[in-house]
Every structure is written in structure tokens, then in C-alpha cells.
């Protein structure tokens, strides 16, 4: 029974990582690549760690896998956020199929401060499609 569970979980985990790496090749722009990679890799590594915890029924192994999965889930979104922010600030273009970009023009050129609600009238730009 546990053999079947381990086989299924590790296969799904490895496939998730495989799809993430194919996604890096196939996605048309930077943000989509980032979007595909971060989560699928987290899911894949998490499932493989879960398999390791099931294979070795030992408290020391289980605590280590839980700690690794916890810190992975804690740090991966922060890293993705920072990479995406820097990419947007340095001016990497979005894909031509992007239907709206509400972040455009919201950064201060000099200080990179992001404007909130106060200065910008967002009701007018709410449903405006992106013109390319």
C-alpha cells in the first residue's frame, strides 16, 4: 500500500518539475516563465520530500522534511516577488498577448516608489485595455 502511495506521489512530483522546466523553454515572456517555474518547482520538491518522509518512518527524517518544506514555502514567493519587481523596474517587456497592464506608469522613475491610491485616479484606468 505504501509502495503505491510513494510511487504515485514521487511520479507526480517529478512530472511537476519536468513541466516546470519545459515551461521555462516554451513560455513567451519573462513573467510567465517566472510564474510557471516557482510554483511547479515548489509543488514537485514538496511531494518528493513527502515521499522521503513516508519511506523513512523516523522522527529525525520527518522533522527535517517538514522544516525544508516549510522554509521552501516561506522563501520561494518572496524570491519570486523580488525577481518580478526588479524585472518590471528594469523594463522587461510583457508579452504581446497581454490583455491589460495596470502597473504601467505607476512607478516613480527616480525613487522606484510605487504609487498607491492617493495620487492616481484609478476609476478611469480600471478597464482600459492595453494598447500596443
Amino acid at each position: 500500500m505504501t509502495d503505491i502511495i510513494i510511487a504515485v506521489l514521487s511520479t507526480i512530483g517529478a512530472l511537476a518539475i519536468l513541466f516546470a522546466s519545459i515551461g521555462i523553454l516554451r513560455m513567451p515572456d519573462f513573467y510567465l516563465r517566472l510564474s510557471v517555474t516557482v510554483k511547479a518547482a515548489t509543488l514537485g520538491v514538496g511531494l518528493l520530500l513527502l515521499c522521503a518522509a513516508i519511506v523513512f518512518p523516523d522522527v529525525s527524517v520527518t522533522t527535517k522534511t517538514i522544516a525544508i518544506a516549510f522554509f521552501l514555502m516561506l522563501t520561494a514567493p518572496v524570491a519570486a516577488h523580488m525577481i518580478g519587481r526588479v524585472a518590471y523596474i528594469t523594463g522587461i517587456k510583457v508579452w504581446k498577448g497581454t490583455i491589460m497592464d495596470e502597473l504601467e506608469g505607476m512607478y516613480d522613475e527616480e525613487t522606484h516608489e510605487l504609487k498607491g491610491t492617493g495620487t492616481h485616479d484609478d476609476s478611469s484606468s480600471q478597464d482600459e485595455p492595453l494598447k500596443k
Partner: protein
Amino acid sequence: MIKQFLMNLLLSFIWVALTGSMYYTNFLFGFLLGFFILWVMNRNEVDQRYFYRVPKTISFLFFFFYQMIIANLQVAYDVITPKYFFKPGIVKYRMDAKSDFEINLLSTFISLTPGTLILDVSDDKKILYIHVMYLHDKQKFMTELKNNVERKLLEILR
């Protein structure tokens, strides 16, 4: 709230010490037993929030894993088939979360469910900029995020 949680932990550690086997299943069983005992003891108290929060947290975790798997399947299908199905877009999301901790949990959740990615938080901590892969209907996406994710999360935290 925090008192009851610590009491629950104490009860589960006592259970582990008495039964003498340091396994997670045993610890979990002790935790559930302690939860039940505390619930019976506090039935006449006014403050019942702890006993609503623990089941809600567990159901939220399951909801999170379910979302993660479903959306991963969708992305995987899109990656391996030759045609692109997605319509990416960057949307503005006005959030109700106020403190840094709430914003952190909300953005972690949004970033970990595939298809969505936080690009930035505005400086006055009111607006999230989210990169969405499948933006077929913006209004539907916003209301789903507001009702399914943020409301549940804030119910647990507040």
C-alpha cells in the same frame, strides 16, 4: 485564544509523555484529544473563537492544497500542448488586509497558487499588483479572490 492554544499544546505533550511514543500520529491524536477536552471545559465560556479557528485553519490548508494541485494541472496541460490558452495580464487588487503579517500571508498564498504571481505591493500597503495567467474575466477573478481566499484568511487571523 493564545492561552487556549498553549493549553492544548501542553495537553498533547502530556499525552505524548504518558504514552511514551514520540510519533507524529501520536502527537496529533493527543492534540485532538486535548482539543476535545478544552472544548468540553470551555462550553460555558463567552470566548469561543479558538474552537472555530482550529477547524477553519485545517479546512483552509486543505483548500490551499486542492487549489495548488488543480491549477498545476491546468498549467501543465498548457505547457505540453502546442497552442497557448492563456491571456496574461497585470491587475490591481485592492486588499482588505491591513497589517504586515496579513499581507505577507495573503501574498504568499497568491504567489503559491499557480497562474498568479505578486509583482509588487504599493507603498501605502493598500494595493497588490498581481500577474495573472488566465485573465478571462477580470471582475470574476477579483470577486473570487476576495470571497474565497482573502475572506477565509482574514476570518482565521482576526
